[in-house]
């Protein structure tokens, strides 16, 4: 990845070591102090140009290479995403506004994201529109110069803490369902927006319902063209081709396991240590597949099949590694007096296991990726 990326990795790790408490499991816990850690950490990253390093300098970035951006992505996910929900603003909300927003929208939205102050949520999925997103029914109708939006979104992560929603709604009925959809940038404190948390295996804040009852927004809330939202959504997905660097957390946990277990490691069943070794190979495999997509993307040659293959590999890794790690901590001896590292490790593994269940569904299901990959394979010359 080059010396600049290596230096950056060292810098980010030093910041994490200094500012993120040991045993931190992310912003989305029952303890509000964890969210405060994320907010402070985002501001710190922003001050150092590390929150959105790949953004152009004029929008608060530092024109960093995709590899430097990858380093940040890897280190953040490996350390339980101390940016909290900010990664969405940085990874795709901001870049999409850069490309499709008006000058006023860019002025209004990009600086708060770059400063680490704005939390966004994504209003795409609905009760009857999951993988088949184009069947969504949340509707926006004109009322003078304004729009009134009504409908229901679901599985909306971070909705309760978000200031803004990147919302897709139907604005007209057309022959093709993909036509007639529009993106709205909706303030979450607008009258008529109601968020209801959904309790889940994943922990608090991950899943919410968002009800919209005649939510009034101005014409300036439309991102891009009216009825042109589907094209924007496709671009959002292209920004998210590599998505979360799940392999980084898997590798960190797998590599840490022998040290935490100490001499007890050698007493583990040989079959389990073999699965552990295989897990490390799968980590490397997923990382290399991600790097291939990034390299191709840099050269403008990315093929949808490459991104889908990576997504499939990394989701499988996420779940396989979680099972192996749970087996390992299940056989770990009781911890004696000491640093508490074994307890923290067990909690981190347990968190990884719970969260890994969502990896085949989050940001588009693995079966959609399989369809995309198969389509690319069968269409190849």
């Amino acid at each position, binding site marked *: 990845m080059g010396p600049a990326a290596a230096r950056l990795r060292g810098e980010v790790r030093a910041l994490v070591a200094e500012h993120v408490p040991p045993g931190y499991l992310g912003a989305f816990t029952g303890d509000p102090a964890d969210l405060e850690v994320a907010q402070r950490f985002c501001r710190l990253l922003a001050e150092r140009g590390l929150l959105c390093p790949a953004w152009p300098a004029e929008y608060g970035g530092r024109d960093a290479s995709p590899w430097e951006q990858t380093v940040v992505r890897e280190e953040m996910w490996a350390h339980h995403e101390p940016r909290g929900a900010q990664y969405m603003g940085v990874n795709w909300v901001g870049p999409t506004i850069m490309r499709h927003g008006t000058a006023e929208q860019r002025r209004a939205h990009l600086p708060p994201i770059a400063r680490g102050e704005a939390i966004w949520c994504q209003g795409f999925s609905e009760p009857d529109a999951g993988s088949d997103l184009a069947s969504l029914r949340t509707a926006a109708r004109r009322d003078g110069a304004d729009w009134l939006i009504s409908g229901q979104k679901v599985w909306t992560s971070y909705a309760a803490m978000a200031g803004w929603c990147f919302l897709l709604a139907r604005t007209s009925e057309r022959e093709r369902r993909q036509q007639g959809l529009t993106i709205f940038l909706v303030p979450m404190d607008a009258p008529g927006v109601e968020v209801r948390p959904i309790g889940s295996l994943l922990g608090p804040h991950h899943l919410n319902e968002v009800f919209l009852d005649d939510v009034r927004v101005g014409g300036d809330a439309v991102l891009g063209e009216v009825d042109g939202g589907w094209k924007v959504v496709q671009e959002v997905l292209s920004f998210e081709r590599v998505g979360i660097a799940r392999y980084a957390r898997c590798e960190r946990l797998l590599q840490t396991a022998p*040290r935490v277990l100490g001499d007890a490691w050698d007493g583990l069943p040989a079959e389990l240590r073999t699965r552990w070794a295989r897990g490390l190979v799968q980590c490397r495999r997923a990382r290399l597949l991600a790097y291939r997509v990034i390299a191709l993307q840099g050269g403008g040659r990315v093929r949808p099949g490459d991104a889908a293959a990576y997504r499939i590999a990394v989701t499988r890794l996420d779940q396989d590694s979680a099972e192996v790690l749970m087996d390992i901590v299940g056989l770990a001896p009781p911890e004696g007096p000491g640093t508490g590292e074994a307890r923290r490790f067990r909690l981190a593994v347990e968190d990884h296991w719970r969260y890994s269940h969502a990896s085949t569904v989050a940001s588009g299901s693995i079966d959609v990726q399989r369809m995309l990959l198969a389509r690319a394979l069968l269409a190849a010359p």
Partner: protein
Amino acid sequence: MNIEPSGEAAEYGRQASRAFAAAGGDRLAPLAEAEPERRGALVEPVLRELGAWELRPRDDPDDLEAAAALCRSAGYRALAYPLAERLARPAGLGTDGLLVVDGPAPRAPVAGLDLRWTAVTLDGRRGEAVVRSGERSLDSAVVAELDVRPLDAAGAGDVALGLVLPCWTLLGMLDRALDLTRSHVLARHQFGEPLARRQGVRFQLADAEVERGGAEALAAYALWSVQSGRAEALDDALALRLAALEAAEAVFRTAHLLHGAMGFCDESPLSWVSRCSRPVRWLPLGLSATRDHLARRLGRHGLTGLFSEAAT
């Protein structure tokens, strides 16, 4: 780190693939299996023409990439010739090739060839390998049992290359098996439509491609590791072998299932690619033994990566 071989190497591989096709293509594997003694005469002139024996994969990074591309093309065309083993020949011993061996009854796909071989075990013990005359493996005519006369223990540096190049051959076989399967499901109609229209078929293809693509990525990484003389090159080679063998299991299962009985027939190229994959997949180590060796080597330190220092 290199995640893709150079354009020159890829072009050399395509050139080799065309040359192998012109030299007999899919007929080469059945001929080799029927008369292993004739296979050298069938392919060695083509390899000479391609400059295979001038390649110095141990000394020149570009030659190593070219050697890998050549092995991949040989796998694609099911050459049934120990090309990878010959390209990995050790320095200074005057032999024609290197065979990585394991276990008390070493075997290698070298039957019927009048060549001199060096054998090396995974822990670097080298010996002169001689084909046992008159004894052939039951499962393939090209596989021979070996007598190994101990030589020295200086072969630790040979093992990684000796494991990596055959994986490139296997990778070429996986490329071919998937290409054949793709063509088959597009052409074959069942229930009134091409098999390729069925989601179950598409999902199987996608899953097989993930395995193949993963093995390809690790093959490029392991090659770079050998090129760079990294201390952990053997770990990287075993990691590649593990992924390549798992990929072979997935790809060939899918390929055979989707081809149906047609895929077993002698006139089906898949049948021969599948048969030719056996020596690479089970010699010197099958999947379980590869996993076991890798886990033992990794001990508590793990595989070099983003967080390898976490284990120390």
